[in-house]
């Protein structure tokens, strides 16, 4: 594992009118790490994700990915730098089969344009073969290759989450953002997903994820960033975070009190 910095967020702020959804947040993600962002509801976690992936523009601050500033870049441009994501509220392409979803994920790896596809030039067939093979591999990686030819919308919730991950992986990114990957999964599905993520990390993938499920966070995160009311209140290893009084007051304490 190298110590190369993949993502660097510096003094990032976002305000919606008078509300500071994210305020002066700074942190780094190194290559090969799994970093978790936690915090109570409304702490600005999803906003942070949307800022990093370019879905919404930042009010101020810097974001660099692989040494390149990605402030002001469109989401598709950021994706082509090697950063893909999944969504808290699933965004599976319901109008396609499972494998087509994943093949769509390989978009930036392919070249076929509108004319070469319309005329079905010889290289298109080769490319299609390869992308299908690649998609099947990605599905195998998350364990739903047997569902490849089902309609995506017919999949149960947990499998749709895995499908989103397979689709994100198909772009061969170096960095994946997961927005509440465990939400709505039963304990068995969660454990399965944790294993999938751990395996991917072994192959050199870097993750940033937002999660409420503390068991998951503690078991797979190398580093945890804690947000509360848009501000970073702590950062550290799972052990450090679980004993941090500020965090317990803001987040864990409330959970335990229930």
């Amino acid at each position, binding site marked *: 594992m190298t110590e190369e910095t993949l993502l660097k967020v510096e003094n990032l702020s976002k305000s919606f009118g008078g509300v500071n959804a994210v305020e002066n947040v700074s942190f780094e993600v190194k290559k090969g790490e799994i970093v978790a962002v936690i915090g109570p509801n409304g702490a600005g976690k999803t906003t942070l994700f949307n800022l990093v*992936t370019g*879905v919404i523009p930042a009010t101020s601050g810097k974001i660099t990915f692989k040494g390149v500033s990605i402030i002001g870049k*469109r*989401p*598709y441009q950021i*994706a*082509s730098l090697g950063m*893909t*994501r999944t*969504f808290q509220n699933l*965004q*599976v*392409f*319901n*109008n*396609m*089969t499972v*494998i*087509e979803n994943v*093949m*769509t*994920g390989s*978009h*930036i790896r*392919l*070249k*076929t*344009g*509108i004319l070469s*596809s*319309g*005329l*079905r030039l010889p290289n*298109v*067939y080769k*490319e*299609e*073969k390869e*992308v*299908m*093979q690649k998609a*099947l591999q990605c599905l*195998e990686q998350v364990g739903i*290759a047997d569902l*490849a*030819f*089902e*309609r995506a919308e*017919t999949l149960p919730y947990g499998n749709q989450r895995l499908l*989103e991950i397979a*689709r*994100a992986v*198909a*772009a061969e990114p170096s960095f994946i953002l997961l927005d509440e990957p465990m939400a709505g999964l039963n304990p068995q599905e969660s454990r399965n997903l944790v294993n999938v993520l751990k395996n991917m990390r072994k192959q050199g993938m870097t993750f940033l994820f937002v999660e409420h499920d503390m068991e998951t966070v503690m078991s797979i995160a190398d580093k945890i960033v804690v947000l509360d009311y848009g501000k970073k209140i702590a950062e550290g290893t799972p052990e450090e975070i679980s004993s941090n009084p500020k965090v317990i007051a803001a987040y864990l304490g409330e959970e335990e009190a229930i």
Partner: protein
Amino acid sequence: MDNNLTKIYNRSLKGPLIFFVVIMLLPFIFQSNNYILSTFIMIGFYSLVTTGLTLLIGYAGQISLGHAAFYGIGAYTSAYFTATLQMPSWIGILVGAIIASLVSLIIGIPVFKLKGHYLALATLGFGVIIFTFFKEWKTITGGLNGFFGIPPLSLFGISFSTDFQFYFLIWIFVFLGIFFARNIVQSRVGRALMSIHGSEIASEAIGININKYKLQIFVLSAVYASIAGSLYAHYVTFINPQLFEMMTSIYFLIMVVIGGIGNIWGGLIGAAIYVFLGELLKDIVPKIIPNASGEFEIVFFGVLLVVILIYMPNGISKAIFHFIKRITSNFKNKPVSAFSKKSTGSDIHD
């Protein structure tokens, strides 16, 4: 794992070839029946437009209520270049397509910042503007009096002056158009288009430049409409602005929806149903309501659109393909089980 592409995409040529042969044999049966031939020729023009529109509406999920404008741009450009400037037909078709693509590009850039109803309204407004151009730019279009004396189409030294000749020409164009569109749908570009329909935010997150694809497919559909318009102008030899007004755009949309969005043959099927039903209505309605005006068509297709949207949101083509599948599997003596695995055959993209 089986990595045969045919498990995802139906690239079989058997069905289309049979259909093509049937279409190509029809005129020999009805050689002397100009009514049948001209009906099929009209279906051909509409099919070409609706196939392009199916890519835009059915696959990319972007609506257009202004495609009659591109149909008209093709028609008037061909008319002007061949009748007024005395140039060969192919130049008119080509220049028409170029103008249509430039206009669609210029319109598309601002218009695709909009979504849903707003996009529909913007394209509707665009159609009205172009209609006004056709009406008022009298030195070129002849205004409301129309454009007379468009010469018959002549390509590769052959003059297509009879219905019998024209029939083959238009249907070859239709089949080429459908194959081009089908190839697009079954590729990276088609998946990108469908992903925009599925979820724009997810589509961008995997690196798809959605504005670029919306624009590209809008331009392509404009070119389809323009070529159809050029051929149409040569066929009827007289055009006027009313042929390209708003209602025509709406009828195009109705054809696409009736035929079935999300199926590349839907445009053709919708166009055929529209033309046949229209002809049937012209026969039947005056017998029931003797003093009915031409407006009954609008009422009828409006109602049909609503019924289709409620009961067959995927259009008639889907039902037809299921039916064909059932018949062919009966022929092969395979038992058809209602509980057979649903996703393997019927959801393949034709």
